């Protein structure tokens, strides 16, 4: 295989900015973390988006990011990469509460969901306290 071809393949497999949250403002998948114990956005929380590879049945990481001051994380995925399948949003809730000097019951929260129709918009909030959380498909 030629060097040029290898480089092309490398570029496909490891595209630039694959795992960092992208700056594009129109991700078809969005989230919003709310700290319901304090009535504030869950800001500065690390999170990651994964897709389940159906053949190998393993999770492939798509994006890592951190919620902004409003508890949101824009640029989770591009429309192009948003294929049908099973995805997982993992929220690092344990470190979040630790950074606020508090203990919590959940070391992390993973929400696993199915995307049937990638042309739709999916909004997945996480409402969170130290001892409870809830999620729903919103808009």
């Amino acid at each position, binding site marked *: 295989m030629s060097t040029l071809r290898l480089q092309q393949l490398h570029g496909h497999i490891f595209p630039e900015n694959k795992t960092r949250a992208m700056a594009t403002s129109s991700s078809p998948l969005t989230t919003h973390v709310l700290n319901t114990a304090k009535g504030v956005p869950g800001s500065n929380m690390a999170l990651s988006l994964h897709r389940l590879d159906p053949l190998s049945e393993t999770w492939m990481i798509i994006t890592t990011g951190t919620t902004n001051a409003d508890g949101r994380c824009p640029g989770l995925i591009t429309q192009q990469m948003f294929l049908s399948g*099973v995805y997982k949003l993992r929220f690092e809730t*344990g470190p979040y509460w630790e950074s606020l000097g508090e203990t919590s*019951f*959940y*070391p*992390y*929260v*993973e*929400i*696993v*969901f*199915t995307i*049937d129709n990638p042309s739709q918009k999916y909004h997945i909030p996480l*409402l969170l306290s130290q*001892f*409870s*959380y*809830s*999620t*729903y*498909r919103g808009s």
Partner: protein
Amino acid sequence: MTESGPLTTHVLNTGDGVPAARMSLSLHRLDSEMKIWTMLSVSMTNEDGRCSGLISREAFVPGMYKLRYETGSYWDSLGQNSFYPYAEVVFTISDSKQKIHLPLLMSRFSYSTYRGS
């Protein structure tokens, strides 16, 4: 003497306003050295959506645990689709003398959990 053990759960189908009966679920503990999940028990909720006998007091040592609810299969059995293929709740036990009650309130497009009593 309580038969239910130190860990209980209760699943409610909030979409229909009924207990989620006959939902499969499993309890796992994270092996702290090998960082892999060990399945401890597989159970099914009863007609009231409850499940006891998940673990014995002796086995309920401090550590990280995971309750996995087969919510997707549950909705399938009702002939409905759902947004979540399953729901996993990962929690930390630091004091194994506690009694932990973990409800799961769920519909086809939402779920919530909390540490109850």
